[in-house]
């Protein structure tokens, strides 16, 4: 074996790139060759010191938010513009109000303002309706929807409420405050319910209210805050919440 190849194989052994036979062969040569063993020792020392001293940098939250805003459908019209200045947003708000209603503006607003979580959730709900595709995975089978969320850190409980009049329509992933958030989509007759699961933060939010013609229900279940948004009537959404909570907490067999 040439000296050059032996060097490459030494690195490959360190990196776990050799198969069992290659590793066995390498270990035999390592035992018989002091200078190879010394080189391998130095390589291991280098790897150890790099692991100890170097921190893998994480993308700053502001960058994540800019990219999330860029990806939001409103930004796809002008993808080069990240985080529009406030004046431009105000101008487009006026434009939107002139074209349709203030709610049009709300629907087109990028989901970057953490300060108005409810507004963001309603905007995402509307965006789903406007695009004609409220769910990225369209399925009434909770066993298909649940694993699909495996790609986000927080997997929501997925329950089947079809017998009670709330069939599962699917799921999608929204970006809330720069982080992906799972959304379950249910139907009630002609209405759509967006149920967003967020990591629990601060005081437990709880309650029911109406904003801009939308019913909102929010509750906390363990480490998860659930936000249900729909244009269905408040009583209907309250009923949905009751049924969802009951089904979600009726035992592991019902929720997996």
């Amino acid at each position, binding site marked *: 074996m040439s000296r050059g190849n032996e060097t490459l194989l030494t690195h490959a052994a360190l990196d776990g790139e050799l198969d069992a036979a290659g590793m066995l062969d390498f270990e035999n040569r390592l035992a018989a060759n002091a200078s190879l063993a010394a080189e391998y020792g*130095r390589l291991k*020392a280098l790897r150890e*010191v790099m692991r100890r001293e170097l921190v893998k940098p994480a993308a700053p939250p502001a960058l994540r938010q800019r990219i999330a805003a860029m990806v939001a459908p409103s930004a*796809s019209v002008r993808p080069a513009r990240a985080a529009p200045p406030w004046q431009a947003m105000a101008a487009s708000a006026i434009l939107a109000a002139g074209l349709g209603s203030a709610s049009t503006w709300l629907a087109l607003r990028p989901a970057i303002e953490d300060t108005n979580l409810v507004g963001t959730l309603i905007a995402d709900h509307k965006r789903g309706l406007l695009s004609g595709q409220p769910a990225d995975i369209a399925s009434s089978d909770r066993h298909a929807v649940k694993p699909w969320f495996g790609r986000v850190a927080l997997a929501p409980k997925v329950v089947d409420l079809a017998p009670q009049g709330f069939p599962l329509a699917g799921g999608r992933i929204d970006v809330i405050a720069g982080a992906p958030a799972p959304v379950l989509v249910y139907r009630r007759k002609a209405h759509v319910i967006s149920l967003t699961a967020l990591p629990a933060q601060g005081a437990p939010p709880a309650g029911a209210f109406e904003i801009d013609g939308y019913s909102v229900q929010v509750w906390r279940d363990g480490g998860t805050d659930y936000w249900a948004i729909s244009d269905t009537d408040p009583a209907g959404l309250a009923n949905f919440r009751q049924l969802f909570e009951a089904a979600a907490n009726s035992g592991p067999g019902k929720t997996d």
Partner: protein
Amino acid sequence: MTKSPSNEHFTAVVMPHLDDAYALARWLSGNNADADDIVQEASLRALRGFDRYAGGNARAWLLAITRNTTFTWLARNRPNTLVISDDIENLPPADDAATPEEALIAKADAAAIELAIGTLPAPFKETLVLRDINGLSYRDIAEITGVPLGTVMSRLARARGLLMAALGRPEAK
């Protein structure tokens, strides 16, 4: 021209690997502010080219775009930092008289390692960063950097050889 369904998919595919993209851009550019700009530009490119993403290894796909964006960005904005040599693979190994000492390597601190990585020629540096910071397999690195597996292996050996020489030289301490 609404692209929302594919945008949601894009978020799910790209966002989980943003830290990896940032780490690569940070190490190749040498500073955080540049990495910020580069990753934003790379994400935009990824978004525009998302139609061509055919599934598969999303991390390698995003890192390939980030890597290419980094070099274009550096050539445009930091022309003096990029040392590109066609002959880099053929240079004979540095013939340092002294064999680097394992004990000295083990005692290196972050600043010394960062300096040593910073002075590596770009092809060696990116291979080292993809392997030792991002933790990618040789095969993924070959795909991302567009070179044969054997070249990945020799670049990695050269990069580590240079680092060990820089950190393990007795007079350096």
